[in-house]
């Protein structure tokens, strides 16, 4: 033991006295650690400043790309640079503002002074925008050790593609409530009455009402005998009228008259100053235009004019029926309404043969009276036309109209579709144009929209499901964006819309939904509904509203304003959909 102790003591005596050695060591350690910590801290701050600079540059690139995305601005690169710089300056960095940023063509390689910044933006020939920036860093701690010419630089790109791109499914509500603001109160093919309103002047509305399905029987035999011969139209129905010289329709108008029986006779010399409700146009409704003008021509050559309050003459009736024949209601009415089976006007008009295509012409014309529905269709027409005219859209169009059901969904419409003649469902037009990878289908979609008739019921979920199927089906162009544009006036009559919206979202589909609330039919629940639809779809989906539940039926002025609003919304939403950050 003694020897071991002696050895231990020998070792310890060899040691130097280490008292006081820790403090110097710690001080040396601090001298090393503090600068290292300072560098680490400044590195963190520099990284954050770089991130902020990157975000500001991104904002600038996106803004400039959006600006250039407007075809009207495409040549104005100088302004785009200013736009980019303005948005760049809006942002802050941790250690300072970017509001003093100056334009520099060499921004990416600049070494600005501390807290100073430079910016540059280039619009490339391929349509992309590149923004570059530099910021002079100001180290928080290391600045005390001297000047550090550090700077952060950033670059960001964005691409603006004008117009709506990819596959687009228009989903159009054609429920009966879309007759809001109409001159008709029911879907046109469901009514025994087709009331045609003529407006002589703005202040003296006049109208002619007649019961097509049940015309005054006493007139009918004579009508049958005189319809063709009386106007000298025999042999002219098929084709000649359309090519005949047509007098100015402004020469003829209907005057207001008391209702007699089931129709209101015309008692004043017809003067059709204008008939805006009918939307009579030689291009869009050539047959109606020709018929009406033939009627006007006949009146102008007729020396016998009905006196005010007089019993309607056969000319009154046959003229009305002539017009109506061009609109289709002289057809066997069972085509559109089984309840009218057996009541065929044709039986009273021997030898009368409506022109080929008159059914479609009738339907088109009658639907122009359908208030909100017509406004909706016209807005879509305008939208598609503008997109096509821009020449920058590569959208592929499709359409699904829906009411009590949707095309492609249920094999037969449900019983709720009371307006449909179940004996002749093929005559019922739900518009449907499927996607075609090889064609944009714009004209087909527009033609289908014109024939979009109405039913009771709003099967929004089925329509959305069909749109999702279409966008995911064989008509989809691989890699193309998928968009559903839904126009509806309110609440569905069947459940499942939110599930369908989620399904769309899972398929990467963007939903743009416009709620049309020109009356209080579905207000405010409908607005809640469409917003929920957009939220549940995700993918940047958006909900918009037109109107705010006005308790009164929409006026023609409101309908017109709504049409413009829908068009504006669609253009606004779609024109920026292609702006993407490249980095």
């Amino acid at each position, binding site marked *: 033991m003694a020897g071991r102790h002696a050895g231990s003591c020998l070792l310890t005596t060899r040691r130097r006295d280490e008292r006081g050695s820790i403090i110097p060591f710690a001080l040396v350690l601090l001298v090393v650690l503090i600068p290292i910590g300072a560098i680490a801290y400044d590195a963190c701050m520099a990284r954050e400043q770089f991130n902020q600079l990157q975000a500001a540059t991104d904002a600038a690139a996106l803004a400039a790309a959006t600006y250039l995305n407007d075809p009207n601005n495409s040549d104005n690169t100088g302004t785009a640079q200013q736009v980019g710089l303005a948005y760049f300056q809006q942002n802050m960095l941790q250690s300072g503002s970017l509001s003093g940023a100056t334009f520099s063509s060499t921004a990416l390689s600049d070494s600005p002074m501390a807290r100073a910044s430079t910016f540059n933006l280039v619009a490339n020939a391929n349509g992309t925008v590149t923004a570059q920036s530099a910021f002079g860093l100001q180290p928080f701690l290391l600045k005390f050790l001297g000047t550090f010419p550090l700077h952060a630089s950033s670059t960001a790109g964005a691409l603006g593609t004008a117009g709506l791109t990819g596959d687009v499914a228009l989903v159009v509500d054609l429920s009966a409530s879309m007759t809001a603001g109409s001159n008709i109160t029911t879907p046109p093919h469901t009514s025994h009455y087709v009331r045609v309103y003529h407006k002589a002047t703005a202040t003296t509305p006049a109208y002619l009402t007649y019961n097509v399905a049940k015309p005054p029987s006493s007139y009918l035999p004579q009508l049958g005998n005189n319809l063709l011969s009386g106007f000298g139209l025999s042999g002219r129905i098929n084709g000649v009228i359309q090519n005949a010289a047509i007098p100015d329709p402004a020469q003829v108008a209907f005057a207001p008259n008391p209702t007699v029986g089931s129709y209101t006779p015309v008692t004043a010399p017809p003067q059709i100053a204008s008939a805006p409700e009918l939307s009579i146009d030689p291009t869009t409704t050539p047959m109606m235009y020709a018929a009406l003008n033939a009627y006007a021509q006949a009146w102008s050559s007729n020396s016998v004019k009905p006196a005010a309050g007089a019993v309607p003459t056969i000319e009154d009736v046959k003229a009305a029926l002539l017009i109506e024949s061009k609109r289709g209601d002289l057809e066997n009415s069972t085509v559109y309404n089984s309840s009218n089976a057996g009541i065929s006007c044709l039986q009273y008009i021997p030898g009368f043969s409506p022109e080929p295509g008159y059914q479609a012409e009738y339907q088109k014309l009658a639907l122009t009276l359908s208030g909100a529905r017509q406004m909706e269709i016209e807005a879509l027409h305008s939208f598609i036309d503008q997109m096509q005219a821009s020449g920058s859209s590569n959208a592929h169009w499709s359409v699904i109209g829906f009411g009590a059901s949707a095309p492609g969904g249920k094999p037969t419409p449900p019983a709720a579709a009371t307006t449909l003649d179940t004996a002749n469902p093929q005559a019922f037009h739900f518009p449907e144009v499927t996607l075609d990878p090889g064609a944009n289908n714009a004209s087909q979609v527009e033609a289908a929209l014109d024939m979009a008739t109405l039913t009771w019921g709003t099967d929004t979920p089925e329509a959305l499901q069909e749109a999702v199927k279409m966008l995911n089906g064989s008509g989809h162009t691989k890699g193309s964006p998928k968009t559903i544009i839904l126009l509806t006036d309110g609440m569905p009559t069947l459940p499942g819309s939110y599930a369908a919206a989620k399904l769309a979202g899972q398929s990467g589909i963007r939903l743009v939904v416009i709620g049309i609330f020109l009356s209080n039919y579905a207000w405010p629940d409908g607005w809640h509904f469409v917003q929920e639809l957009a939220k549940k779809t995700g993918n940047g989906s*958006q909900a918009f509203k037109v109107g705010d539940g006005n308790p009164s039926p929409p006026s023609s002025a409101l309908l017109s304003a709504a049409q413009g609003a829908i068009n504006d919304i669609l253009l*606004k939403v779609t024109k920026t959909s292609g702006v993407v950050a490249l980095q």
Partner: protein
Amino acid sequence: MGSTGKKNCAGTSRSQSASTLVELACMGIVLVPVALLAVNICYLAAGSYINDAACREAARAASQQTSLDPASGAAQAAVQSFAVAGGLIGSPQVTGVVFDYSTDSNGNPIEIADLDKTILSKLPTVQVTTQLTARVPAPLLMGSKGLTNHVVLSSSYTFPALSGVDPSPNDTNDTGSDNTAAYQPTSTEDTSAPVDTTDSGTTGSTSTVSQ
């Protein structure tokens, strides 16, 4: 038992042990705060990074909207993905959304596509501010608050309103009768979520959501 001379078996005297303790204490007075400060900085850097990234994504999401309410909703949805479960670093929260509709002299909303040199001072923008509260291990002296270990980190980004501007924004103080209320979370859902308290909804105004 004097303080000098007598050595233990390790060869160190009691006086040496004592001096070591004193030195360690002295060293600790300097090094421990440095170490704690370093840990604090790590937490703050991490929190700042999360908050900054959340704010950037929130601003990006909000910039896709056309009015205040959907913008604030989008911003809140965006920061959800940055939520931090437990730990000392809190979750980022949207504390402010400003949707600047920027109107021209006629009161019409300005869009980016409409900008030219004469109105570049008016920009349709969406500014999103987020905050994150980080608890640091060592209390810090925070001005008037004195010593606190709760540090609030704030970040703000301004992005262009990329999708245009809703000409008729529905940003008013909603009664909850329509879906705008969906952007006003209840106190049980998210007390930090924004509530539209100030906006008049008038086109051309600057709408603000603040907490």
